[in-house]
């Protein structure tokens, strides 16, 4: 694999037809048919490290697209300023998230080399949003990286306007890969075990891994939370999972 790719900022139609910013990376491998991935950025926003993740998918043969979920609140602002504004406003409304992921998935499916299969992956708040999207949209694979507030409600007093969404489990449209840290408090291993039980009840295919010695954000290479052993194994799980469900 050459790992050659082209990456650029584009505009796509998101929720309610709104034009929003998105980051697109496409392999330069000459493939005539490939799977695609919608990347949902973490709560700190549409930042440099999230764009690196998008490029990583392209380097591994997937067309990848990440909508800027904070674009409406903060067009043109730096990612940290945009994230601060979104946080103070209570986060991204669930309905809007689903619409933005739908727009991204439609963009990817319409690309010339698309095989029609689209997966979704999200980190931190994006982990919950990945599950949310997969329960509201017809997708082919979903990855939840340490998403909280799926089973348990948010801590009292927090301004985020999100509610538990485990009740959507019967509508999960595709297999779910969950990657979690044993030391995480949001979500706790108990919470992710509960989610697994619920998915079992509904016969929904899923594969959960909880890494010892890792907490929240263990994939984040630019943060002290980075745990290379967990992250490296997690990436391998992701390649196996997407290879199984998104390949031509």
């Amino acid at each position: 694999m050459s790992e050659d790719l082209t990456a650029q900022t584009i505009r796509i139609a998101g929720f309610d037809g709104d034009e929003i910013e998105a980051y697109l990376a496409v392999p330069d491998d000459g493939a005539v048919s490939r799977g695609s991935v919608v990347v949902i950025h973490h709560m700190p926003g549409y930042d440099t490290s999230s764009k690196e993740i998008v490029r990583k998918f392209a380097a591994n043969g997937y067309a990848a697209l990440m909508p800027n979920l904070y674009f409406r609140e903060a067009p043109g602002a730096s990612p940290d300023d945009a994230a601060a504004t979104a946080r103070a406003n209570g986060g991204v409304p669930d309905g809007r998230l689903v619409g933005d992921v739908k727009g991204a998935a439609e963009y990817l499916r319409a690309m010339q080399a698309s095989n029609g299969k689209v997966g979704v992956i999200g980190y931190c708040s994006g982990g919950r949003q990945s599950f949310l999207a997969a329960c509201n949209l017809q997708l082919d694979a979903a990855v939840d990286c340490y998403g909280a507030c799926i089973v348990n409600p948010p801590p009292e007093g927090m301004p985020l306007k999100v509610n538990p969404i485990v009740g959507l489990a019967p509508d999960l449209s595709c297999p779910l890969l969950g990657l979690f840290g044993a030391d995480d408090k949001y979500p706790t291993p108990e919470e992710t075990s509960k989610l697994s039980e619920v998915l079992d009840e509904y016969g929904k295919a899923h594969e959960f891994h909880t890494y010892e010695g890792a907490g929240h954000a263990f994939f984040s290479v630019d943060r002290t939370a980075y745990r290379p052993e967990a992250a490296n194994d997690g990436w391998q799980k992701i390649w196996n999972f997407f290879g199984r469900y998104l390949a031509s």
Partner: protein
Amino acid sequence: MCTYNTENIAITGSGKGANGWFSLSDATVYFDHPVHAMAEHTLNIDFRNPGNGPSARVAVELTAESARALAAAIEAALASVPAALIS
């Protein structure tokens, strides 16, 4: 972990950001992952004026120890001045 806990308060004053001084209207205080500080969690304060856009922000990320020292220093500084100066 993302703690998510956030305190929002209305404030009056000014701050100096990337584009110079501006009036402040809000402060957001939370203990969560920093953007820049090399710690897993920090006490973060965003001094903001949302009416002037997302970039009207002065941000600090402090270790918990530093944040407590700052809070104590603020209280000490205010306590040391004559009450008549504080309206």
